[in-house]
C-alpha cells in the first residue's frame, strides 16, 4: 500500500508529509502536526467536535482522509487567535460563558466563525441552524448562541469604528 506525499496549508503555514491513504485528517492534525486543539468526539460524523475549515467551509475532519487535503487550505482553532489577540468569536465564548466542559468548543468556534464570514448579523434562528451539526453534551446551547451574537456585534463595531 503506497503512501502519498501531501502539501496542505494549515493556519497559513505550508505543511508537507508522507501519509498512508487511510489516515483520517483529524489524526493528521493531532498526531502528525501536533495540533491538538481539534477534538475527536464521536468519531461517527455526528458531533462536530472535529470541525475545521477546508477552503473556508466548515467540515468534519473525522470524515475526510488526509490525502484528500493535498493542495488545500485549512483553518483550525489554533489559527483563530492572531498576534496574541483572541478572535471575537473566542472572546464571545469567554464573555458569554459559551463553554462548560469545553470539549465541543473548538468545533463550535469554527462553525461560528464560518457563519460570521458570510453572515455578519445572523438571527438566533440562523445561528441555531448553523450549529445544528455541532453537539454540546453539556447542553450549553443558549450561551453558545449568545457568544456568536457577541462576536457578530463585536465584528460589526470593529468595522464601523
Amino acid at each position, binding site marked *: 500500500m503506497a503512501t502519498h506525499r501531501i502539501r496542505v496549508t494549515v493556519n497559513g503555514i505550508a505543511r508537507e508529509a508522507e501519509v498512508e491513504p*487511510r489516515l*483520517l485528517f483529524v489524526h493528521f492534525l493531532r498526531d502528525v502536526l501536533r495540533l491538538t486543539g481539534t477534538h475527536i468526539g464521536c468519531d*461517527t460524523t455526528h458531533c462536530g467536535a472535529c470541525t475545521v475549515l477546508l477552503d473556508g467551509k466548515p467540515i468534519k475532519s473525522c*470524515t475526510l*482522509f488526509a490525502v484528500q487535503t*493535498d493542495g488545500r487550505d485549512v483553518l483550525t482553532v489554533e489559527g483563530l487567535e492572531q498576534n496574541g489577540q483572541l478572535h471575537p468569536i473566542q472572546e464571545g465564548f469567554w464573555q458569554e460563558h459559551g463553554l462548560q466542559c469545553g470539549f465541543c468548543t473548538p468545533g463550535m468556534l469554527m462553525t461560528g466563525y464560518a457563519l460570521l464570514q458570510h453572515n455578519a448579523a445572523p438571527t438566533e434562528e440562523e445561528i441555531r441552524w448553523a450549529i445544528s*451539526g455541532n453537539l454540546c453534551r453539556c447542553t450549553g446551547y443558549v450561551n453558545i448562541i449568545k457568544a456568536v451574537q457577541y462576536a457578530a456585534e463585536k465584528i460589526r463595531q470593529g468595522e464601523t469604528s
Partner: protein
Amino acid sequence: MIPPKFDYFAPITLHEALTLLHQYGSEAKLLSGGQSLIPLMKLRLATPAYLIDINRIPGLDQLQERNGFLSIGALTREADLERSELVRAKYSIVYDTARVIGDPLVRNLATVGGNLAHADPANDHPATMLALGAEVVATGLAGERAIPVAEFFTDFFTTALRPEEILTAIRIPVPAAGSGGAYVKLERKVGDFAIVGVAAHVTIDPTGICTRAGIGLTNVGPTPLKVHAAEALLQGKRLDQDSITQAAQLAAEEARPEADLRGSSEYKRDMVRVLTARALTRALQRASGQVA
C-alpha cells in the same frame, strides 16, 4: 476507528477514473463526498482495496438548465443546492430535500451523486428524484447512457449502475407551467435518517386538473419506493382534499416499513399517510402559486 488499508488514486480526468474502475472493478470504490463511505469504512462494513477519489475531476459539479433539463453534476455538494437561487426558485422540492440531508457540516462535502449511487433506502434524494421523473447519467469507457431513476434502484443498496460505470450527472425535466413539489421528512433530530420521508411533485392545468403526479417514499422499504397506484389515482383528477386523502391512503398501503428503533411498522405506515397528504398539499399550493 481506523479503516483497513487501501490504495488511493486521485485521477484528474474522467477517462483516467474510468480506466481505473475498469481495471479494478468491484474491488474499487469511488470516493465523492465520503460522508457515507468513510463512516462505513471506519466501521469496516465497506472494505474496498482501491479508492478512486473523483473530487479532482473538473466539470462534474455543474448545475445548469439545458436542453429541457436541470442537469446536476454528480459532485454538486448539497450545500450548493441549498444555496442555488435557481433551485430555490424553480425546484423547491430539491431545496426541501438538500436542506434536511445530514447536517450543515456534512452538506459541505456530501454530494448529490453519492446520495443516489449509494442507494441507501434511507437517503433523501432518491424519493425526490422518483417524484420528479429524473434520470441519471451513467458514464463508462464506451460512452454515456441515461437510466430513468424509476429503474435505477434495483435492490437494497444496489443500483442499475455497472461496476465499470460512474454516475456523472442527474437530469431533472424542467417542470411544466403549473408544477410544484415538496419533500417532507420526519426525523428525530438533525442529522438522523428519516423515520419516513415523502416527496410529491404535481402538475395541474388551468382548470385545476392534475395532469402529472409523482410520489416517492424514503426509508419504508428495501429500496426508495415510487407509489405508482397513488400517482395513477391522481392523474386526470381534481387535486383536492378528497383525492389527496385517497392518494395518501394508497401510499401507506404501498409502503413496506420495518420496525426499528425509529418506530413500529404500523406507526411508520401511518406516518406515510400523514406525510403524503402534507407533501401533496404543499405541492398543490406551490403549483398554484400560493406559497414559495
